[in-house]
């Protein structure tokens, strides 16, 4: 059964140096405030995993939390580059960042295999792309019935998954709705999980499009209203598109980035 704890406790107990940490959220329900807590607790040498690393991953990378990034699309959607991500890859600042990149379909299926207790997944993918040569983690397998060759990717089973959801009940059952990306798979693929939520309710009432994670499949729930800002939480608040745009200027230089992080993350409590 999930324990309901503070975000500080959840990160302190469940995220260790050197862990592989998936923070999922496909443009919606991105666990920004949980990422800030990981930064404040000065975790190091993490392997970060996410289909769509955006601002919170830019921040984690810029603060030197990660040794490695597993991803499939890293940008500021509709705005442009992730400058901290680029600075790490192009210039090794603040540390060099190993990357393993996939297509969305490939990394998604790594999560699916992980959630399914399978060692790998097959897909029609990657054919004819440079990714096959550049990424060690793509192989092929033959169909034992038709002889066709398909791409194979290994399961990913992170140490910890961190996601944000709209609500949990007092028992730790979680419900999210709207775009739910690959969050269920990330939680089910991982050894441990932290779910930050907008609200804790007595009883969950199922919503249209509601995806429920039963409490016994979650390790910890933390009540973190606004935990997805500047991304959004359908039913609670909208995407702060202006902030995504502002991030372009904030993150472009190392100095303005660090000073923003100092003021807005390090000096702020959980």
């Amino acid at each position, binding site marked *: 059964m999930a324990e309901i704890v503070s975000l500080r406790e959840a990160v302190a107990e469940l995220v260790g140096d050197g862990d592989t940490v998936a923070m999922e959220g496909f*443009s919606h329900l991105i666990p920004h405030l949980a990422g800030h807590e990981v930064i404040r607790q000065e975790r190091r040498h993490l392997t970060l995993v996410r289909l769509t690393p955006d601002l919170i991953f830019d921040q984690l990378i810029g603060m030197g939390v990660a040794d490695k990034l597993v991803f499939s*699309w890293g940008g500021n959607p509709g705005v442009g580059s992730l400058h901290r991500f680029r600075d790490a890859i192009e210039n090794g600042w603040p540390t060099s960042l190993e990357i393993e*990149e996939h297509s969305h*379909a490939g990394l*998604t299926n790594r999560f699916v295999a992980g959630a399914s207790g399978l060692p790998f997944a097959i897909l029609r*993918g990657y054919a*004819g*792309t440079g990714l096959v040569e550049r990424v060690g983690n793509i192989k092929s397998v033959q169909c034992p019935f038709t002889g066709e060759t398909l791409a194979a990717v290994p399961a990913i089973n992170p140490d910890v998954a961190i996601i944000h959801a709209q609500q949990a009940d007092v028992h730790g059952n979680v419900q999210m709705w709207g775009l739910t990306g690959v969050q269920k798979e990330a939680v089910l693929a991982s050894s441990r999980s932290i779910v930050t939520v907008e609200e804790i309710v007595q009883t969950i009432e199922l919503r249209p499009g509601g995806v429920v994670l039963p409490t016994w499949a979650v390790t910890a729930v933390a009540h973190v209203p606004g935990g997805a800002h500047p991304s959004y939480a359908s039913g609670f608040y909208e*995407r702060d598109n202006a902030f995504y745009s502002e991030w372009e200027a904030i993150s472009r230089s190392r100095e303005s980035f660090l000073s923003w992080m100092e003021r807005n993350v390090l000096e702020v409590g959980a």
Partner: protein
Amino acid sequence: MTRTGSGTGNLGFTPSEMMSIAAARELRDGQVCFVGIGAPSTAANLARATQAPGLVLIYESGCIGAKPTTLPLSIGDGELADTADAVVSVPEIFNYWLQPGRIDVGFLGAAQIDRFANLNTTVIGPYDRPEVRLPGAGGAPEIAGSCKEVMIMIKQSRRTFVDPLDFRTSIGFGDGPGSRERLGLRGSGPRMVITDLGILRPDPDSCELTLTDLHPGVSVEAARQATGWELAVAPEPRVTPAPTEAELAHLRHLVSKRPQGSSK
């Protein structure tokens, strides 16, 4: 090369607007279209607002049949989910909807394209020491492989039309005739590349991109100058009909309602 500015010039429309409108015209009512963010999303939504109201838009974030009234900034804006016929998980979008080949048109952009319409969205420069690290593959490799056909939108210049690519992120016609078949790809590949200068289509025999249409006021020579290889040109390139007032009005209305923060 006076056509690369963003002003409307004396034609009353910009090259970017012509590109969006030319692309929108190619989408047919009732088609199912897998849409990337940015220029493809603009064109697809323009098509929905004009000649293809029944165009079905699929976004990789999980939206099937999205009917946004404002242009989304990201592929996961709330507007897309709220207006969709169905919202599904990302695994389902890729495994059940894209992979089996049930999507009519995949609509892609890119940073670089080569003469066989292969695309790069990964790096400029060497992979291990990139000059510019781009966002990466996203949904593109499987969109390029699995959709029944692919349409590409890209501004044409010697920086974008290159041979060879710095990195091949997703496949067009690979190394030429037979490449897609050898790779077991089911979709038929790029049907056309729509740029701010004109339209290129693969030669039926060689698969090489061939300039078949020029937008109003653009010369063959201008297109050649904006291409990093010796551009194949059809014997008599058509001239794209200029945007109608209705097309321009719809496009400008859509763009005016785009959320703050968009840089393209």
